[in-house]
């Protein structure tokens, strides 16, 4: 576990070189200001096989694992957190198709995602606050050979840009177990009755648009059902857990990117006749940052590796997500502080890393949500 394979090292280096070659500060800062999706980079990343690296080769994926995917995310976010997050979210919820979708759905949609033709998005939650997807009011009713879907989904990533949405719908309100009342249905963006409403600019992750998804008598074939009826909550949870590994890797890269910029600054900046890096207080902060980055890396890699062994350890996924996001927040906050007034200026970028870090910390569940999951698993049943 403590060494990457040659292939993994090569993938990391390729991602690093790609980021270095394609992402320059002036351009990406402008995209961030404009809240623009990085279309060109996305297409190039797809061409080079960085998207869907963990999807099978028959769907134009890389046929590799979550750890490989995590390494790519880490390197992209390290060079530019906002671009990295957007590329990570480009294939959002495609894994639901991969794990539970029919062969026909997989053949039709997965290659488009990996080849950079289409963005995908999970549309699970409905509350204004986001996150909570246990209360689903969106309904899908069978009429002839179609589902008729009505409802409103909130905080949908890639909303307005995605080619298709994986929508959590109530399909059996009378189900004996409320857990088994919902299903996942694939809805193409061009279906009549589907519209989106942009949620505008956010604190961070501004190259990943968020929108409300409005479904008004949208009709899709019955075959658009993903997996089995009544299993949506279990699917959505498992996908969310798996996705936390990617978020953890993005947060790790965000922490590192902020750390790199801070390190450049403190070694160059002189105050009171000494470099900032020569003050003990800076040094201890740097020591804390370096340690927490190391811990975040270890837990993130382990979570990804366990998944690659075919196991799903949601405790570990939650721990990794919580730890790496907290680290990204702390490291970027300290970085701003060490840069002083310059840290607050957009030109020095660490402020963007800080905004992106806080955004990652909230997406896919705050620390509070992760702690609920970790504790539930740790304590188990109480007699």
């Amino acid at each position: 576990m403590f060494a990457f394979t040659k292939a993994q090292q090569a993938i990391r280096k390729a991602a690093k070189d790609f980021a270095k070659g394609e992402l320059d500060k002036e351009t990406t800062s402008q995209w961030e200001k404009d809240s623009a999706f990085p279309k060109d980079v996305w297409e190039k990343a797809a061409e080079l096989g960085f998207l869907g690296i963990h999807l099978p080769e028959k769907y134009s994926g890389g046929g590799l694992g979550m750890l490989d995917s995590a390494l790519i995310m880490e390197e992209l976010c390290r060079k530019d957190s906002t671009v990295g997050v957007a590329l990570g979210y480009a294939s959002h919820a495609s894994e639901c198709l991969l794990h539970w979708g029919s062969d026909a759905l997989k053949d039709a949609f997965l290659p488009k995602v990996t080849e950079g033709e289409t963005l995908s998005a999970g549309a699970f939650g409905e509350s204004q606050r986001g996150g909570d997807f246990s209360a689903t009011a969106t309904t899908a009713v069978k009429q002839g050979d179609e589902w008729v879907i009505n409802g409103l989904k909130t905080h949908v990533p890639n909303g307005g840009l995605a080619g298709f949405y994986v929508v959590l719908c109530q399909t059996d309100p009378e189900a004996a177990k409320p857990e088994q009342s919902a299903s996942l249905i694939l809805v193409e963006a061009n279906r009549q009755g589907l519209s989106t409403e942009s949620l505008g600019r956010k604190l961070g992750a501004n190259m990943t648009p968020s929108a409300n998804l409005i479904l008004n008598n949208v009709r899709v074939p019955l075959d658009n059902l993903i997996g089995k009826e009544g299993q949506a909550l279990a699917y959505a949870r498992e996908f969310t857990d798996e996705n936390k590994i990617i978020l953890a890797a993005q947060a790790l890269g965000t922490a590192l990117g902020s750390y790199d910029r801070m390190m450049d600054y403190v070694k160059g900046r002189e105050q009171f006749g000494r470099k900032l890096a020569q003050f003990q207080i800076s040094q201890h902060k740097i020591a804390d940052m370096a340690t927490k980055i190391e811990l975040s890396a270890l837990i993130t890699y382990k979570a990804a590796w366990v998944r690659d062994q075919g196991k799903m350890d949601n405790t570990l996924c939650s721990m990794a997500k919580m730890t790496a996001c907290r680290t990204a927040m702390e490291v970027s906050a300290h970085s701003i502080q060490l840069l002083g007034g310059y840290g607050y200026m957009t030109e020095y970028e660490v402020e963007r890393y800080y905004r992106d870090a806080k955004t990652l910390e909230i997406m896919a569940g705050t620390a509070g949500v992760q702690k609920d999951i970790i504790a539930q698993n740790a304590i188990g049943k109480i007699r």
Partner: protein
Amino acid sequence: MGVLKYTEDHERFRLNLREFLAREVVPHTMEWEEAHIVPKEAWKKMGKAGFLCTAISKEYGGLGGDFLYSVIVTEEMAAISQAGLCAMLHSDIVVPYINAYGTEAQKKKYLPGCVSGDIITAVAMTEPGAGSDVGGLEATAEEDGDEIIINGTKTFISNGLNCGLVVLAARNPEIEDKHAGVSLYLVEDGTPGFTRGRHLDKMGMHSQDTAELFFSNCRIPKENILGQKGAGFLMLMEKLQQERLMSAIANVAIAENVLKEAIAYCRETLVDGKPLGRSQAVKFALAEMTTDVNLNRAFLDNLIADHAAGKDVTAQTMMSKFASSEMVNTQLSTIMDLFGEYGLLESSPIARYFRDQRITTIFAGTTEIMKTIIAKFLGL
């Protein structure tokens, strides 16, 4: 509580101000944020309504109010996170230099305009190479007959574009001592050789015009020296107590206000069919934050009373400044979690507060500088 004795006049003033802000300022917040500046007209409205420079005596057109009026303006404007129309910076940080150290002629010339809002002020200490290390400033002021020639670059200057008058710190290049060579000067807008640099793009406080100022063979008359020659550093240090106190007042005021919003949100918002505030972790978080705010408030109110009474509370003010700024940032991060993805949206109030307040642990002396000086007071 109750250390501070607010009179009925104070309370009436607060209500009038609150009403004025709701009518004239709050509706323009987003427009000013997008424009990255506040129109000068808005400053004049504030001035005409009597909310600028309340501490300036009636002789110069001011209210002649006690320090509590300054506290009220700062609290009310912080509570709405108004960044650009920064009355406290003008009224209670910059103008006091002129009021305390200016000659009668300088006061007559500038103070009425400062009170009316016709003159917006800025203080220019920070330079690209001299941030925390104020003593490292390199801008020079050289005497040449009846004039002084100023050369140098200042950065991160709030009101940098709007300002009509700058209180500038520069050094006599002939004096070697880091501190003894520094004097303060008054530089008016339009003086040849004084130009504005870039309008700096920041994480938050978007409506505040933060800019670079350039001085290139800028000639000002000798009578524009402010206070005693060579006493610049002392004057800066003396006035920093109030600057840091104002900063602490603003921090505590916004923390109180955001917390109120968060508590209301947690009462109303349902998660899994139950109010968010039913969660024990949420209850504890809100209880802890309320406790922190109250502790900061109690310490601060004592300091306000002592400062108003003219006592030297330099070290305590630094404690209050750094503790309250760290508190408000920690709180906003926690509150953002409570608001969830909704809090991330710029259309919610939390995102802007979060971006705006990040500067509070940096400006008016970083947390690290505060701790360094507090340690000196401990004899270390």
